[in-house]
């Protein structure tokens, strides 16, 4: 059995929210952005995290870096627990865990040159390096992500979105991390550029044995890049499955609906497709439904769904789903 690089156990991120009209002495409501999510990530693997806006996927990503401290549960890095208040341990861990963000331009300081942006992690984590060494490393990593050496003194606004994302990737790579968390890295990019960045990430992963957590709402991209996929809905894991299995035989009704909603770029398929539309909107996260959080919109919901919260349960060797009605399958 391989040792997991990152293990997340029953992770919870709860926020206290107070209605502005409420009296000051009333207890604030709790918003459970992430509620009891567990997964393991192995070296060199890509875990995709999908879900609609407000499902907690970005909060989960930030909690994995302690950018938003978890309010419950445990995070293990290479077998060692990381406590939310242990700043020193987290600083060390972040040498190995880096992140790239959705908005490529907004995540770069407009007043710093590309060279300084990419070199900054080294100044924080490797202060012993001389300026020459930093410069050399910056140039090497720029070449790796497809930027030219002449661009080192330019500012972020001089680059297009795709190039800015390359700068973000270079900044994440320079510490030679073992895991990069990609929070919607291609959502803001045009189709032709998106493929460039996805290919770049895959190539870097192959070359360096990187593990990736790839967060996106675009299921086609996630399918393309991921080994396993975690489906979130209202802060809860609905399904965790091998990528091919998830798309071939989704175990959870939510996954089924989500997959049926993705348009396929082929008019012959699209025109004849029967859409499985979900009724209504996502319920308020402050006041989630009892039992299964998806039951208010689930086409298969029954009385039993309002009872206990269903945990992730193994359906076959490749799929786990959090649905009491899902049937176990052989294989």
């Amino acid at each position, binding site marked *: 059995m391989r040792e997991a690089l990152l293990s997340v156990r029953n992770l919870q991120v709860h926020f206290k929210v107070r209605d502005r009209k409420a009296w000051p002495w009333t207890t604030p409501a709790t918003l459970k952005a992430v509620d009891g999510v567990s997964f393991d990530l192995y070296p060199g693997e890509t875990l995709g995290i999908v879900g609609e806006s407000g499902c907690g996927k970005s909060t989960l990503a930030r909690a994995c870096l302690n950018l938003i401290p978890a309010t419950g549960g445990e995070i293990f890095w290479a077998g060692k627990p990381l406590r939310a208040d242990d700043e020193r341990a987290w600083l060390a861990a972040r040498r190995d865990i880096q992140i790239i963000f959705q908005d490529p331009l907004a995540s770069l300081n407009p007043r710093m040159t590309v060279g300084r942006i990419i070199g900054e992690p080294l100044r924080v984590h490797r202060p012993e390096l001389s300026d020459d060494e930093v410069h050399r490393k910056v140039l090497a990593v720029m070449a790796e992500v497809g930027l030219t050496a002449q661009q080192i003194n330019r500012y972020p606004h001089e680059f297009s979105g795709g190039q800015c994302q390359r700068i973000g990737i270079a900044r994440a790579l320079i510490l030679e991390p073992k895991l990069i968390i990609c929070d919607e890295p291609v959502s803001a990019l045009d189709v032709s*550029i998106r493929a460039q960045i996805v290919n770049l990430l895959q190539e870097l992963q192959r070359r360096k044995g990187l593990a990736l957590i790839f967060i996106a709402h675009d299921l086609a991209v996630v*399918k393309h890049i991921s080994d396993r996929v975690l489906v979130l809905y209202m802060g809860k894991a609905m399904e965790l499955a091998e990528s091919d299995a998830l798309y071939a035989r989704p175990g959870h009704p939510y996954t089924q609906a989500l997959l049926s909603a993705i348009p396929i770029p*082929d008019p012959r398929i699209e025109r004849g497709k029967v859409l499985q539309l979900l009724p209504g909107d996502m319920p308020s996260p402050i006041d989630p439904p009892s039992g299964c959080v998806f039951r208010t919109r689930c086409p298969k919901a029954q009385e039993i769904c309002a009872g206990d919260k269903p945990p992730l349960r193994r359906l076959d060797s490749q799929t786990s789903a959090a649905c009491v009605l899902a049937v176990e399958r052989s294989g």
Partner: protein
Amino acid sequence: MSDAPATKVLEVKDLSVQFRTNDGAVYAVNHVDFELGRGQTLGIVGESGSGKSQTVLAMMGLLARNGSASGQVLHHGRNLLGLSPTALNAIRGDRIAMIFQDPMTSLNPYLTVERQMTEVLELHRGMGRRAARLRAIEALDAVKIPDARRRIDFYPHEFSGGMRQRVMIAMALLCEPELLIADEPTTALDATVQAQITVLLRELQRDFGTAILMITHDLGVVAGLCDDVMVMYGGRVMEHASADDIFHRPSHPYTRGLLAALPRLDDTSAKLVSIPGNPPNMNELPPGCPFSARCRYVQDRCVTTMPLLQRRDVASTALRACHRSVAELDAMEASDA
């Protein structure tokens, strides 16, 4: 392309848009032609900077102050370009309606949905407030907003993103327009909501015979909704053909590149074929084809002369703008693989 429609709702002839900027004139849209018949759907596909949004903004007289349009936009034979704002206002929101990408910025946050909807009817139909309110409730029902009778008095912020887009669509359809222009109507929405809105547009088109001009970068949405597709790049039309032709027999290197760069749920190929290079800089376009800088099959004349938009072959109605013939491209692609 499908056969010439009996009644043309809109004819656009040689539409060009240019902007005066401090760096000189920027030619955002160049020589665009298309027409739209009753109940037809045309998709305009393109990436950022392709000129797809400026095309429709120009049609509706909504260009920024430093922009100017030339050519003709004929609505039942009447040129909309150069009409006075008053004359345009009689058409906009009545015969031609528009919905935008971000419903929150297109609805007035200070007014209830009821006030914003009844205003349209009072203005264009001269209805009284009470009758207008009933008609507005009907429209909200038509786009399947539950409990419309009560929710009509809500402010925009009290609706979710998908519901707000429905309100926008309901408002656009109040006067039963002949043409609905939808500028990236589902881009800001989640997948399941996007599917709901797509189905809704399809049903409304069936029920009211509205022509739809759909602007998007999402080829999946186009596949489900559009009869014809126009692919734009760098302010020019690259290819204009039926949806079947665009997806199954693409004839332009850019269209082919776009389709190959798209990961598909029903496909398991290991690598996406990306288009090298960066999006076009509209200030520094070559005199020839705007895609020439990124095209794998570029030749000298591509950079110097813009290819004309011509029929793919004598038997076909599909239009393409490329110096290389389809046979040539097929042969080169085969030898690449």
